[in-house]
């Protein structure tokens, strides 16, 4: 069905055409380097150096020690001190402080007398995630402080019934950057695959050159393969700088590099399949771009690349299963952070291949119908 000579000729034409397109090449390089670097460098959900105001109404050694514990934890930056309620509200309203620790006036006296006392933590909940993480940190700091005071105050302190040893697997320091790099690599692959393919095909449609191609002896399958191979090559090559960035950030590579490239190749093919699908629906470049722009945008960010799929509503979880990006993301997290191989990832692999096959078959059928 596929004639090697013909294929090579078409492929040469496509490769030349593709490399001549400065804009697309720029887009690819930009997405795989600048965008990944900036996002990894800047974006995180980590809660560190939370701007905090301390209202110490007690001004005793004990209260200062507690405030010091907050400061030295690294999670809270105590950059404001006040004892006026209005000022606390003002700082929170203006967003100058995201947390406020209020130590009541009788704090040290009650501590010394052995009566329970509570300190108040006011949190700006406008970012719910930051607030709930900060709440956990504050609780741990106060608990540690309380335990220490307690053990110092009684001659024979009762032992703690249950002690808890937490261990974090795969990313023991919980560095968000690890996740971010991998997520941006996956996002870039999706955007490059869809946009370049859709733009490439629609542009030929618009200029009418696709009709010329269709009257040549070239078969639809050959045409698609010839269109996709150069992009696939460039897409895989473009992964190299982003891998270097990943290594520089310190992302561990626990699995097999070859497996990563294999997954990337089938994933790129499947995202090109989406590009072909877009191109079959669009008649003009503008339509194609609008479609890939807006239809893609939700797919990009709702495939487990920003927030885990399992925290989405159930209906969305099923939809996410249909997105090749979801499975690719799972696979590269597995390969890099967990060091798992095909024995765990075969399911993701099968789904991506299936999606790619369905999309490509659809594309070929559509092209063939146009020929007759």
């Amino acid at each position, binding site marked *: 069905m596929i004639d090697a000579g013909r294929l090579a000729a078409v492929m040469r034409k496509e490769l030349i055409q593709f490399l001549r397109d400065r804009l697309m090449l720029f887009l690819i390089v930009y997405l795989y380097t600048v965008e990944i670097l900036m996002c990894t460098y800047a974006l995180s959900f980590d809660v560190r150096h939370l701007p905090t105001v301390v209202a110490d109404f007690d001004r005793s050694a004990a209260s200062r020690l*507690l405030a010091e514990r907050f400061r030295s934890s690294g999670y809270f930056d105590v950059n404001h001190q006040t004892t006026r309620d209005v000022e606390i509200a003002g700082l929170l309203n203006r967003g100058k402080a995201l947390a406020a620790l209020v130590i009541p006036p009788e704090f040290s006296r009650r501590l010394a007398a052995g009566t329970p006392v509570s300190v108040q933590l*006011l949190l700006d909940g406008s970012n719910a995630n930051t607030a709930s993480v900060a709440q956990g940190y504050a609780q741990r700091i106060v608990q540690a402080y309380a335990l220490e005071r307690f053990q110092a105050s009684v001659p024979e302190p009762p032992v703690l019934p249950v002690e808890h040893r937490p261990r974090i697997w795969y990313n023991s320091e919980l560095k968000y950057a690890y996740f971010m790099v991998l997520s941006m690599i996956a996002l870039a692959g999706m955007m490059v695959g869809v946009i370049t393919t859709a733009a490439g095909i629609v542009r030929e449609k618009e200029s009418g050159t696709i009709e010329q191609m269709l009257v040549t002896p070239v078969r639809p399958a050959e045409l698609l393969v010839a269109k996709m191979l150069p992009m696939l090559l460039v897409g895989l090559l473009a992964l190299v700088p982003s891998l270097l960035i990943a290594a520089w950030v310190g992302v561990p590579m626990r699995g097999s590099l070859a497996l990563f490239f294999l997954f990337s190749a089938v994933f790129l093919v499947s995202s090109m399949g989406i590009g072909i699908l877009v191109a079959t629906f669009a008649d003009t470049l503008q339509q194609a771009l609008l479609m890939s722009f807006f239809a893609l945008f939700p797919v990009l960010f709702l495939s487990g690349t920003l927030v885990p799929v399992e925290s989405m509503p159930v209906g969305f979880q099923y939809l996410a299963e249909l997105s090749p990006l979801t499975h690719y993301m799972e696979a590269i997290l597995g390969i890099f952070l967990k060091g798992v191989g095909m024995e765990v990832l075969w399911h993701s692999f099968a789904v991506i291949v299936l999606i790619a096959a369905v999309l490509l078959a659809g594309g070929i059928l559509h092209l063939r119908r146009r020929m007759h």
Partner: protein
Amino acid sequence: MRSLIGAVMRKEVREIRRDPVTIWVAVALPLIMLYLFGSALSLDVKDASLAVYDQDDSAESRALIDAFPNSGYFRRAHEIRADTEIGPLLDRGQARLVLVIPSDFSQKLAAGKTAMVQTLVDGSFSATAMVIAGYAAAIIHAYNLERVHHAAAPVTVETRVWFNAPLKSVNYIVPGLFGVILMAFPPLLTALAVVREKEAGSVQQIFVSPIQPYQFIAGKMVPYAVIAFVEMLLILVAGLWGFGIPFRGSLLLFLAATTIYVVCTVGLGLLISTVTRSQLVAMLLALIVTLMPSFLFSGFLFPIFTMPEMMQMYTYLFPARYFIEIVRGILMKDVGLEVVWPQFALLLVYTAIVFAVATLQFRKKVA
């Protein structure tokens, strides 16, 4: 001279009406985007899968285990019988948290000694791993307190959350989306409207006509600004009714901010159109210059205070940051101009600069 603005406007309105796809895109897609991101973009931990390895199997261990699903944050997904099962469960992502209770758990408790339990957290998604680890620690702490009620902790922390007491992600995602969605559509539609004329060559006719650059820009801009404003009202109503987010502050102030922001987004579209000649480039520029940064670098999802100093400065380049701060201030914090005036001022200055540069660019072309 005003009539010239009107003429450009009438022409533009006619062109928009002739293109139903654009209207559909302008009205329906923002609503779809609001629905998708508003309901699915959440970092709240709920029903995270828990695997339990109970080597003790006593009343005490069961009480501790039951505290996990009872908290509402965890769902018991697996019972582990052997050490070797732990690794594969985490590897396959079938458990986010593994709780290991040793065989001497109840024995040690009875003897008044400290019993150890181990929790293993899947850290591959670090943002939720942090929350999961925090919840696990809190549950075990509560269990401890219950067992030693006679020795209450001397210091406790009492947390009060302001502005978003139920700590729901949707309450901060949706107001942020207002800023992002308005950066997605109006700039792009405006840029395409001008670049299309450039591609078709009809813009040359405008350059040789007696029309002034500012008149051309105003005439082009107004219809799209009106569309954008209607877009904003639609997503506001959808956000308030569909997602039940609070609106605590002044509607008037909100509309004032929206008006400035809408003009600003359309202005950015015009600016993009002055530096490009093809629709393709305009679209990619809109993607890289307006949509992506508004999504990633505006404080919409990723907090700005955790960014390195340099990147914090970078976020000032994108007006979405000012607008989102204003919107969150009005909707969630019920603050007025006395608090958000700096953002208002920055937004105004930004808009003025965008228009000045766009007009200058056009004048250069005419001359």
